[in-house]
């Protein structure tokens, strides 16, 4: 028996409280949400009885033949899942099928595609202790039932909170993956359709000839021409076009001529098909590694002649074929084939015009390969990446055995074979897109790796750091400064240059030529742009060589088309309950008509953490969607995919009635709040009015997410997990107080610098509170963005470890740190590059970023230093061997010795001004106490943060800069007890802050004339 999985209520108890009105409270953007974990529990991972060792991503399919089955996991099954029963789990997550499965056409024989929005659900398997974010999506498959194959991607974790708190991020990330998969699938589906159409056309041709032959055999020879004429009138559109093109009326052709024509036409069509198969051929060829690229005229000519030969032979076998295939009723067969052609054409039109329609939507973001940062890393398998992609602009014809696949006869009876092996994911989705999707999934797995508390604090840090624009440039890693989702802002949107391609199928008669060329219409983004520059993005070059033709072969929809479509009721079906675990999702209609009490919330179309421009855009889209969908079921959650309005309109049969079953289910749960869900959706960007919020709250409170009652998670209304910069004040949520984040006494933070000085070391938050926020200064957009947070975590650990090692190895480390923090360039001098680089890495933590990120660090150089280098480089690894003539100190170092501190790693000496202060001693003290690199890294950051906060205050102390005014004695007093060396550090940092704030960064070198001391081990 399959038990129902637990659907978890996506709730929070204290969401929509009044914001605190305490005037002394921290500004909203700097307040810290207290630990969101339920009270009195440890924020750290509790040992659970799950059988898998770490979180993983599962892709499962609801196969129409064998039911739910797992397809793949990330990381590999053996690594992640342990003894966890994937089969059972996929059964569970797929047993709730929120997708519209194809319910059969109503009132129309035309096949149509369901463009279904993805569904996002959080499920829990309480018995196993496994929780999952499940993202349902459908892929198209010509051979599948209703042309759809339901899939789902699931993020499986043992921590419920983790999934709950990161729902928006998960949703956004998985939506991207889904979009990628679907794009690749549409491409393959179009190819498949095209192939099928070719077969159908060929079949029709054969059938027609058979019929004509029968007629001819029964008629006298003298009427051949007349009969021919009739035949021609009934010919296919493509043949007519073909003839017209040749300027030949051909109405009175001899039979032989006609035969020739037919042959040409056939060849023509197949050639087109072959051309269109280049893409698929590429894919397949790539899989087998046998792609033959031939770009010359020779190759083409050879192929052409080859094809002709092949067609001649084909022609010869034609008779036999047609003789072998005996249709019982040729006329009926012809009719059914023609109908199939119409169906397939409409399908092709739908699938190919899908991206077009999306492009017309101003909000549409075409699939962007989100791997620009990854290209920095070496691609483990570059062959698959690049061999796929022909050079843009180069006419590239790929001829493989598939490209000249002879059309096959299809019989209507064999159109649906359910015993056939279903395509696997690789066949369903274009190779390139599949790889991209998998890459993204791996990146998701990496980014969400780790304890939820860790992720939570990381997000908190990022969010808070973003507000400290006046100081955060100094020591923070840029990846901490950019909230992940916001990264997308830095990439200017680029639309494909080929805009508004519309399927040529709208204009009748449809020629074979036109439909084959439209197969290549899967628009793929050609370029990604970074920093406003268009960069050739090799990974995203489409495999279609003639995508430039798109705009040419397509034209805009006609006016009447649009008019026809208006007023047609639209229906989007979202969920169908399956089996015992019937989970009914609220529909908009049900909210309207009956009202509902179910704890349903619409998911914002974008995670709340998306920045304002996004939100605005999305909101607009929500509105338009609503006007369109008066009666449609409210979408559980939408991805970026867009409801194809024109498509739905042109195929009225695509409208489904809501199943009464669903309504019945919902009736039980409805209450009088029918409109709340709708309202909530409208305010989905987290700007819900307080009153509404309260009501929502009530809703949540009324439906606690107990495991036994299936509750449906529809939305993340919880602003508590919204780590975006706007709107939410966390201080209010005292119920969320946890051990990790003790309640901050907001008032105490405002008392001024004097108190701050006596703050204990751990309170790095105090400086956060004092740093002001809305500076004009913006981060330079081209900060090196390290996407892989997991990587950055490892990097931090490594940095911390090497720093610790440095501290242990060099007892005089504090003087070196002092040099760095007071702006004196430190040269690590050595003859071995690895050693020098290691110590440079160790000292990176203490190096303030002057100018652009990492610009101030030069890990290894052999060139003699110039004075201009000293203006930018603050930490230099210098090759002693660069000047072999002077074995001691290179001359340039001697020359500029007054500006330099030199750490000689070969002789283990340090020559620099001695530090006699106390401010930075905490940085080097823990060399014995702290063991772990990460711990030290974070500790060092907190110490440095404290120093930075004092420097920030110093920057804004009038009295210190204007000796004449004696008004602010307290501020002076607060600094006068500092040692001169400490003042130097603060002055230097303060100077950097001032320069940054005034946007005026003349390259200057501050120095002081102080004697150096040589420290020796």
């Amino acid at each position, binding site marked *: 028996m399959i038990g129902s999985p637990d659907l978890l209520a996506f709730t929070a108890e204290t969401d929509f409280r009044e914001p605190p009105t305490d005037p002394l409270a921290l500004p909203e953007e700097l307040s810290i949400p207290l630990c969101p974990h339920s009270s009195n529990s440890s924020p750290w991972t509790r040992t659970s009885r799950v059988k898998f060792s770490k979180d993983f991503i599962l892709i499962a399919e609801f196969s129409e033949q064998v039911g739910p089955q797992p397809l793949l996991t990330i990381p590999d099954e053996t690594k992640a899942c342990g003894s966890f029963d994937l089969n059972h789990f996929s059964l569970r997550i797929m047993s709730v099928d929120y997708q519209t499965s194809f319910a059969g056409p109503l009132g129309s024989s035309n096949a149509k595609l369901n463009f279904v929005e993805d569904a996002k659900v959080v499920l829990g398997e309480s018995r196993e202790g496994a929780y999952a974010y499940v993202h349902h999506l459908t892929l198209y498959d010509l051979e599948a039932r209703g042309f759809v194959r339901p899939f789902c991607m699931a993020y499986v974790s043992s921590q419920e909170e983790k999934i709950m708190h990161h729902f928006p991020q998960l949703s956004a990330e998985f939506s991207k993956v889904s979009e990628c998969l679907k794009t690749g699938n549409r491409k393959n589906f179009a190819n498949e359709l095209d192939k099928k159409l070719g077969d159908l056309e060929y079949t029709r041709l054969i059938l027609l000839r058979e019929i004509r032959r029968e007629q001819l055999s029964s008629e006298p020879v003298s009427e051949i021409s007349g009969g021919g004429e009739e035949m021609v009138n009934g010919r296919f559109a493509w043949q007519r076009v073909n003839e017209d093109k040749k300027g030949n009326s051909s109405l009175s052709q001899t039979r032989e001529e006609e035969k020739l024509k037919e042959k040409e036409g056939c060849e023509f069509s197949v050639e087109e098909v072959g051309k269109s198969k280049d893409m698929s051929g590429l894919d397949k060829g790539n899989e087998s590694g046998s792609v033959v690229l031939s770009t010359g005229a020779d190759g083409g000519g050879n192929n052409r002649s080859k094809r002709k030969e092949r067609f001649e032979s084909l022609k010869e076998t034609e008779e036999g074929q047609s003789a072998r295939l005996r249709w019982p009723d040729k006329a009926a067969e012809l009719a059914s084939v023609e109908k199939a052609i119409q169906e397939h054409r409409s399908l092709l039109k739908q699938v190919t015009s899908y991206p077009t329609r999306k492009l017309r939507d101003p909000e549409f973001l075409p699939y962007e390969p989100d791997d620009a940062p990854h290209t920095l890393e070496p691609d483990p398998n570059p062959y698959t990446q690049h061999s796929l992609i022909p050079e843009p602009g180069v006419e590239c014809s790929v001829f493989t055995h598939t490209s000249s696949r002879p059309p096959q006869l299809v019989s209507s009876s064999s159109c649906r074979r359910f015993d056939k092996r279903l395509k696997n994911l690789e066949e369903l989705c274009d190779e390139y897109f599949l790889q991209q999707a998998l890459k993204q999934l791996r990146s998701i797995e990496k980014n969400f790796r780790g304890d939820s508390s860790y992720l939570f604090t990381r997000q908190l840090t990022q969010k808070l750091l973003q507000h400290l624009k006046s100081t955060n440039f100094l020591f923070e890693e840029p990846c901490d400064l950019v909230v992940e989702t916001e990264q997308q802002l830095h990439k200017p949107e680029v639309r494909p240059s080929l805009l508004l391609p519309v399927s040529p199928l709208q204009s009748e008669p449809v020629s074979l030529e036109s439909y084959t060329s439209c197969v290549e219409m899967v628009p793929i983004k050609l370029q990604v742009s970074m920093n406003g520059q268009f960069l050739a993005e090799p990974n995203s070059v489409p495999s279609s060589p003639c995508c430039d033709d798109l705009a040419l072969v397509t034209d805009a929809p006609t006016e009447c088309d649009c008019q026809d479509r208006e007023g047609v009721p639209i229906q989007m079906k979202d969920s169908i309950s399956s089996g015992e675990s019937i989970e009914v999702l609220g529909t908009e209609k049900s909210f309207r008509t009956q009202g509902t009490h179910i704890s349903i919330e619409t998911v914002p179309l974008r995670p709340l953490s998306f920045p304002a421009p996004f939100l605005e855009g999305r909101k607009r889209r929500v509105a338009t969607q609503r006007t369109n969908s008066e009666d449609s079921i409210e979408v559980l959650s939408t991805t970026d995919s867009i409801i194809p309005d024109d498509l739905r309109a042109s195929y009225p049969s695509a409208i489904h009635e809501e199943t009464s079953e669903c309504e019945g289910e919902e009736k039980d749960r409805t209450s009088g709040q029918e409109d709340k869900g709708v309202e909530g959706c409208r305010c989905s960007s987290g700007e819900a009015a307080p009153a509404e919020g309260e009501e929502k709250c009530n809703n949540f409170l009324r439906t606690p997410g107990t495991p036994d009652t299936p509750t449906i998670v529809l939305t993340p209304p919880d602003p508590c997990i919204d780590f975006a910069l706007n709107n939410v004040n966390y201080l209010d949520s005292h119920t969320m107080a946890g051990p990790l984040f003790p309640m901050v006494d907001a008032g105490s933070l405002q008392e001024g610098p004097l108190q701050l000085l006596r703050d204990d070391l751990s309170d790095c938050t105090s400086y956060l509170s004092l740093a002001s926020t809305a500076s004009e200064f913006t981060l330079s957009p081209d900060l090196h963005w390290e996407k892989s947070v997991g990587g950055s975590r490892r990097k931090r650990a490594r940095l911390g470890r090497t720093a610790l090692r440095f501290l242990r190895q060099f007892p005089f480390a504090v003087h070196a740190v002092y040099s760095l923090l007071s702006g004196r360039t430190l040269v690590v001098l050595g003859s071995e590059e690895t050693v020098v680089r290691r110590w440079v890495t160790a000292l990176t933590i203490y190096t303030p970023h002057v100018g652009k990120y990492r610009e101030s660090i030069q890990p290894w150089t052999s060139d003699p230093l*110039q*004075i201009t280098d000293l203006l930018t480089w603050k930490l230099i690894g210098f090759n002693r061997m660069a000047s072999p003539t002077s074995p001691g100190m290179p001359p340039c170092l001697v*020359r500029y010795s007054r500006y330099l501190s030199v750490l000689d790693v070969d002789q283990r000496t340090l020559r620099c001004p001695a530090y006699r202060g106390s401010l930075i001693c905490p940085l080097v003290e823990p060399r014995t106490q702290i063991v772990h690199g990460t711990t030290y890294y974070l500790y060092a950051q907190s110490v440095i943060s404290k120093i930075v906060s004092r420097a920030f205050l110093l920057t804004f102390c009038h009295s210190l800069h*204007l000796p004449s005014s004696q008004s602010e004695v307290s501020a002076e007093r607060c600094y006068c007890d500092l040692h001169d060396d400490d003042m130097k550090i603060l002055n230097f940092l303060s100077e950097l802050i001032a320069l940054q704030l005034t946007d005026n960064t*003349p390259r200057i070198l501050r120095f002081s*004339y102080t004697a150096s001391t040589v420290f020796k081990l």
Partner: protein
Amino acid sequence: DLVTGRGTFGSNSCSQTNLIAALCIGEEQPKNCFTELQVLKGHFDIVRFLVQIDDFRLASAGDDGMVLVWNVETGERLVELRGHTQQITAMTSYTFIRGGKPHTGLITASSDRTLVMCSSQPDTGNRVQTVSDLQSSARCLLVLSGVDVWLSGGNELCVWSRDFQLQCKSVHHRDAGITAMVELPRNYIAAAMDKEIVIFKLNLSEVEMSVLAIRHLADHQDTIRALISINDGLFASGSHNGELILWDAVDWTIQAYEFILWEEQAGDAQPEIRVGQQKQTDMSIQHLATDGELVVAAVGSGLYVYNAVMKTVVAYRKIAHDSDVLHTMLLDNGQVMSCSEDGSVRIWELQDLPLPAEPAPSGFFGMFGTFGRSGKQTGAPMKKLLDISGLRSLELIGDLIGHSGAVQMFASFGEKGLVTCSADHLLIAWKDGERESQLRSLALFQKLEEMQGL
């Protein structure tokens, strides 16, 4: 006999230690206020000339033929002028009144035998006037602001009006050119031509302006390297072999004669014998600077300070730099600044000597023994210094290290800083870090005020 110097000096036991201590000043320089530097990049070749335009603007010129105008306060490059195809040999600023407002132009002379005058105001559209058909390239320029003409000296002396019209010129000297000029009272001009000083009379009273050489002063034994006007009554010239002569500005008589000779071995042999053994440039007077009373001479790699009023030697230091001193300056606060081929700028202070030592036997002027030109202060022999009342010592109080080539020249902007130019194509603006920091802080507060908070 003019060969004999005014005084002879013995040794002072403390001078060696002084010297070494002073030159190895180390990194603690409490009196050195230049604690911030800014690099001004723009030239492509040796930068040789700096001319201060006003209290914040500076023009630089060099072998790349370019003239760049800088804002010293911000380090911003204001104007870029490319009027010459070859290296610039002389540059001066020229302030004139036009339309009631003072205008400052820059006059440059180049080896391509052109003269260019351009406005240094970036807002006035860089009007450039060029004269290109000169007989010889000008090597020095002099502005006579009193009569509103300016002169160019090459192989002949040309007089130009404000509007760049040639007023008159002297006879052409085929073999020798004018290397320096100073203005004397009553429209007389002293020009240095090889070993002579030629006095020209500029005749303005007639209809046509005329210039005439009326006197040749041939008292220098060697080529004259430097010629300056000290005050209204005196001008000074220095020659390649170390002669420093003070002249009366009115009747052109010699007021003082100093033969600066760093003697190889103190108190021993006659200097005449040693001259040939020493490198010429050791005594060559490269540059003279004055504040109206004191004259600083850059003698080889040493410095020599002379009181032109008292006609006494004030201070001297044979090894002030590791290489030839190229430019010197007397600062307002009594400090002496010098720059050298060794790439450093040094700041000196005139300090009273401690108790004078016992008088030394008489000898010729010159005190230090052989020093390697590298300036290694090792194995310096005993020195003698004759106690002379009023003799002070030149103490190094700071040095500026930044250039990687010879520092050709510097220009001081008072408390706003100092700009040096060098053979490494760079200009460096040296500033008082404290002051700059306060200015930046003020700018920040001003910005905050404008923005109403951060």
